[in-house]
């Protein structure tokens, strides 16, 4: 199983006067889990809908293995997707999957297989109207997996899952990626997918802010250090004098753009005794928030995601 790469090539979309997505330009590689991250309203869902041919781009093209979704010969056998966990409430879970197999020509034996795979076999003959959000998520995932596709596009797949469900879907996505599939999933919370994704695409206000490996996300805003001293005011004065902007918090001062070594040397030179010094922990989330909250940041340089 080898998935095809997904390519957004200078994709923009305007809804009337509103620019929902501006110049998205990135690739998503097979064999990796790519997180598509951004706050609510950042344009994630619009981008995924453009990829699946549900929304027409105002400019640019989004392709899967070089083809637009609308031109794929067997769309659901090439790309599995859940953009909407909405179903006809009067259908049973199994009935919904049968409607989809009828529409796509996918073998009906797959219905039981995917129900089993997502752990929904025992609920399959109940009406979807009575399903919980977590069960809908699982049914959505079952729909995406029906065609055993090489590419999976999942919009907020973790939303509404209980902790056990979250652990389960992490394992499943990892397995699917290890099989060589291309996996693109969106989320508005980095922490939610941090343990799952290899690469991230961060967008805010419709523009991409970062594209690259998750591990390098922190590097994009530089290092950050938390430092504390008995005399915080003197320490802050020294750092400010050197052109930095320390922020006073409960644990001391946070300085971005300096590593602990550099901060320690500055304090030593100024003769200020320190009571704590270290790299900021939990920095990934802060870096993510910093990325998405910059009001009009210039586009981050679009690196190719390493295969």
């Amino acid at each position, binding site marked *: 199983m080898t998935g095809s790469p997904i390519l957004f090539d200078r994709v923009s979309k305007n809804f009337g006067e509103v620019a929902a997505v501006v110049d998205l330009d990135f690739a998503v590689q097979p064999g990796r889990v790519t997180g598509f991250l951004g706050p609510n309203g950042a344009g994630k869902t*619009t981008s995924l*809908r453009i990829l*699946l*041919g*549900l*929304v*027409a781009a105002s400019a640019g093209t989004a392709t899967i293995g070089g083809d637009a*979704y*609308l031109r*794929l010969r067997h*769309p*659901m056998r090439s790309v599995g*997707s859940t*953009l*909407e966990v*909405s*179903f*006809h*409430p*009067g*259908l*049973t879970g199994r*009935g919904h999957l*049968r*409607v*989809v197999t*009828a*529409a*796509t*020509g996918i073998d009906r034996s797959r219905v039981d297989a995917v129900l089993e795979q997502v752990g929904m076999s025992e609920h399959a003959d109940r009406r979807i109207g009575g399903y919980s959000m977590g069960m809908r998520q699982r049914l959505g995932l079952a*729909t995406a997996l029906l065609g055993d596709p090489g590419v999976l596009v999942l919009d907020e797949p973790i939303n509404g899952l209980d902790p056990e469900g979250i652990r389960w879907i992490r394992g499943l996505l990892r397995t699917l990626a290890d099989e060589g599939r291309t996996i693109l999933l969106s989320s508005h919370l980095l922490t939610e997918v941090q343990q799952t994704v290899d690469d991230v695409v961060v967008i805010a206000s419709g523009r991409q802010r970062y594209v690259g490996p998750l591990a390098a996300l922190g590097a994009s805003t530089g290092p950050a250090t938390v430092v504390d001293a008995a005399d915080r005011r003197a320490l802050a004065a020294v750092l400010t004098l050197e052109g930095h902007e320390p922020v006073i918090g409960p644990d001391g001062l946070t300085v971005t753009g300096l590593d602990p070594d550099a901060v320690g040397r500055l304090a030593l030179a100024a003769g200020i005794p320190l009571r704590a010094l270290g790299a900021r922990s939990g920095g990934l989330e802060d870096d993510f928030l910093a990325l998405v909250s910059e009001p009009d940041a210039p586009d981050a340089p679009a690196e190719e995601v390493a295969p």
Partner: protein
Amino acid sequence: MTTYLRSLASEFAKVFQTRLWWLLAIILVGYVGTAAGGIALAFAFAPEAMSAPGAGLPVGDALAPLVYSMASATGFVFPVILGAISVTSEVRHRTLTTTFTAIPRRGIVLAGKATVGLVMGAMLGVLAFVASVGLGALALGLGDIDTRLGESDIWAMIARGVLAMALWGFVGVGLGVMVPSQIGSIVAILAFTQFIEPLVRLAGGLIEPLGEVVKFLPGASGDALVGASFYTLMGGAGIELEWWQGALLLAGYGLLFLLIGRATFWRRDVT
């Protein structure tokens, strides 16, 4: 072609795996059966004076076709609703996303829905005529009036009635895609078929220039196709078109609605 057949199979699966079609079928059969049986009884046992020549009411041979055609004359709104809901429920339950990712060629999805609208309309038509002919003939028999069930003319009328119901299902799909809001389209269907068109047709019987236009209305086309109508009883404009003209006109309405919907709502972004 394969894609069209798949669209058809999936649309049939949507209909038969949910409850709406048989709920509508039960109500339709009950409604049409009661109406046909009731009217047959009312006329069969009407006082002499009412059925005297010149009173304008159907007597003898004219009664049977009127009773049987109640199936389509009063039941036609059921296939329209079933057809319209096949589109509007996708909007209401936000399932167009799944439908269009499974079959990205939207025109083919719509062709599938239109075909299913026709077939389901025909099926409801058969059920409705079973009810109207069954209970109607029983009531006529009780009143010692000829049921005329041995005549080919009557069976030809019943066949045209089933065709009319099929076309009404097709019109419903067109209406649904033209007015994709579920409440909006159902209100439009009820307001037009139960209120606006009946009033205009009654008025058409009184105001001559209006009568020329009235015969082209959807309901009048349907009545022309079946060849019997309750409105002729009520002093409204009579049937002036040939049955095949009525059929073409009704199909034309469906096609017009479908094309309008295809060019507007159906090609828009699904957000």
